[in-house]
């Protein structure tokens, strides 16, 4: 295995170093920066890792649901990136301590706010904790079922698991859409609880899905470059690029639809949320979002050339992932004030969380064979024609 090569252990040590420096900075941020800023950072990065993990678990289940063959040879990559889910759940449980700090509906003043009083049946701490627990348990169960099951199949070669995985996929879809909607409503739009948007859950789902595809694309390309997926061909990656193209458009469509409906109706309690995010100092961030999340990947992936070569695919995937970070930053950080904050606490916590996430994925990358060798559909997936 490549895990023992000197270059690989150097990368590992660098990542551990980055994480440790980040951890020290994070501790420093907890004691010196404002508590609000600390927990908002914590939430941002936890959601970044969690959505990447969930997006990849969704890709795995989607393949099972539709019975796709083409993605089977690459499926180990999303299964491994999905290992961010247990890590992110732990981080989200820690973030529960920050709930009374950053969520205004927990503050005593909420009792005098008629809008929050009306929403109290949903926005109260016990119910919030129950929802978090239910989501975490459901995610973990499906994660273990799909990822562990697939790894066990490597040795057992038992086709019954493939059938079971397909049967359970519709249930996962239903549960997944509800849980991502809850995640979006509770942890992001709950930061400004007077605001609401019915399609906010779909918006987060679209971002989760497309960033999941981008992470999978990066993983597949990096394994291919190391020669660890010798049988995966351009045609497989091409199809993943097509899926990425389709869902950058989907994300742009959902994002714009949400914005346009609120812009058209022009109701004060809805518009104020966008006003804080697209005017003044936040305007450059708001302009960066469609650029990174739509225009760059769209024009890179629209032609057939862009989907056949690693360089444009990698660039598109990086643009989407950066766009996903900018998206979450743009959704969450305006609660801290009218200017985008990015100082040393942000940098330190970025190092800490990105280091943790990279180490987790690296660890998972060594687990099992690089292709699901026990899957009866693997041969068809390798043979598959566009």
């Amino acid at each position, binding site marked *: 295995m490549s895990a023992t090569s000197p270059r690989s252990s150097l990368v590992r040590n660098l990542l551990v170093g980055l994480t440790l420096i980040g951890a020290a900075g994070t501790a420093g941020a907890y004691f010196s920066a404002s508590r609000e800023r600390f927990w908002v950072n914590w939430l941002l990065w936890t959601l970044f890792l969690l959505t990447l993990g969930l997006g990849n678990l969704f890709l795995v289940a989607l393949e099972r649901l539709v019975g796709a063959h083409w993605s089977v040879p690459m499926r180990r990559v999303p299964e491994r990136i999905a290992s961010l889910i247990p890590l992110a759940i732990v981080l989200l449980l820690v973030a529960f301590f920050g709930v009374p700090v950053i969520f205004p509906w927990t503050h005593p003043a909420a009792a005098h706010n008629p809008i929050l009083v009306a929403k109290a049946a949903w926005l109260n701490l016990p119910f919030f904790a129950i929802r978090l627990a239910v989501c975490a348990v459901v995610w973990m169960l499906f994660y273990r079922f799909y990822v562990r099951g697939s790894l066990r199949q490597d040795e057992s070669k038992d086709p019954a698991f493939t059938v079971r995985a397909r049967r359970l996929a519709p249930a996962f879809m239903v549960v997944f859409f509800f849980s991502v909607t809850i995640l979006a409503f509770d942890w992001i739009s709950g930061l400004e609880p007077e605001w609401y948007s019915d399609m906010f859950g779909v918006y987060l789902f679209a971002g989760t899905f497309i960033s999941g595809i981008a992470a999978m694309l990066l993983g597949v390309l990096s394994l291919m470059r190391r020669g660890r997926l010798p049988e995966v061909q351009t045609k497989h990656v091409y199809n993943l690029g097509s899926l990425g193209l389709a869902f950058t458009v989907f994300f742009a469509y959902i994002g714009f639809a949400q914005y*346009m409906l609120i812009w*058209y109706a022009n109701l004060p309690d809805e518009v104020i949320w966008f006003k804080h995010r697209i005017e003044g100092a936040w305007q450059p961030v708001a302009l960066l979002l469609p650029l990174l999340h739509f225009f760059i990947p769209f024009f890179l992936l629209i032609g057939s050339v862009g989907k056949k070569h690693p360089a444009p695919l990698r660039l598109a995937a990086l643009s989407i992932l950066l766009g996903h970070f900018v998206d979450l930053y743009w959704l969450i950080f305006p609660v801290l004030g009218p200017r985008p904050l990015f100082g040393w606490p942000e940098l330190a916590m970025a190092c800490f969380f990105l280091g943790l996430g990279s180490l987790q994925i690296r660890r998972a990358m060594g687990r099992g064979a690089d292709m699901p060798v026990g899957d009866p559909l693997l041969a068809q997936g390798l043979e598959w024609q566009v």
Partner: protein
Amino acid sequence: MSSATFAVLGLYTDAHKIVDAANQIRPRKLGRLEAYTPYPVHGLDRAIGLAPSGLGRLVMLMGVIGAGLALLFEGWVSAVDYPLVTGGKALFSWQAFVPVMFEVTVLFATFTAGLAMLFAFNKLPFFGHPVLHSRAIKGITRDKLALSIEATSEAFDAEAARRALLDNGAESVEIVPVPAWDRPLSLVGLLRTIAAIVAACAVAGGGLFAAEKLMPIVPPMIHMHEQPKLNAFQESAFFADGRGMRPAVAGTVARGHLPPAFATPEEAGTLLSNPLPLTQPIAERGHKVFGDHCAICHGLVGDGVPLLSRAYGGKPGNFLSNEIRARPDGHYFGVLMLGKNAMPSYAADLDQDDRWAVVHYIRILQRAQNAKDEDLR
């Protein structure tokens, strides 16, 4: 000529084999390679030596042109040709244009893809093809894939082509002769097609006209006319006072219609002065207001000789008289708001700026009719 060969067809059932065969045969330049398959086979286009299609770039170009045209059109309509403020939004609101831009992009792109594919790249229309008369065509439209080597010159060697196909895994081979007719597109065929399209349009249009106008079976689509609405002065059961038109909310003042702060025109004359500068557009506005509202009684030059028949018994004021000329601007404004003698108030018809503009215009009339030597210098 009926013995001449159009092409040699080799039949396959495996998509991989036909691609491999095409790759093997292409460098031998036996004739033009063509493939007939019931479903698209990946890589076959390259294997038979087709250059990459320019269709994608054309579609992209037309899509971008569609988006640009939609933006220009909507911007021109909303902000230039018929500026109408809707819901307090800016005249050029790109947010509102995006859905139409998106649709026009898709429209241009799909029409380009469809029409260019059919007519430019696939060279339609043609009304027949020699392969349609082959024995293999039944298989080709079902589950067989055919690789065809077409004769491109007199020197075409059908036997060599037949052997090349058999050597490269063809399950069976068929020699397709050149059919008796030599031109696939005949004038008669073209005329027949055009006649059929015209006939179809005539039947559809005539049928709809008969069903809608002659014997009204299909009701005409006038949903916008039939929508629930209230006309002016119509009764309404919805509002408590039964009136369809709504009175102004108590305590509000319409823009340009401040209530008078004076009781008589004389008082207005002492209180008010004309706030508008005398400029060309304001003079023109005053000219229009004067023509619309004042000239009918006061005369076109303001001399108090009405344009109406003598049967109208009023005695309008003469703006050129010394008495009226001496009055301050505010006095005119006051009369416009409060009325005088038989003249009603024009407060509801003219807003503040209209009133002040017409006062300017009256001053212009007075000066024109009492010109002094200095005015000519």
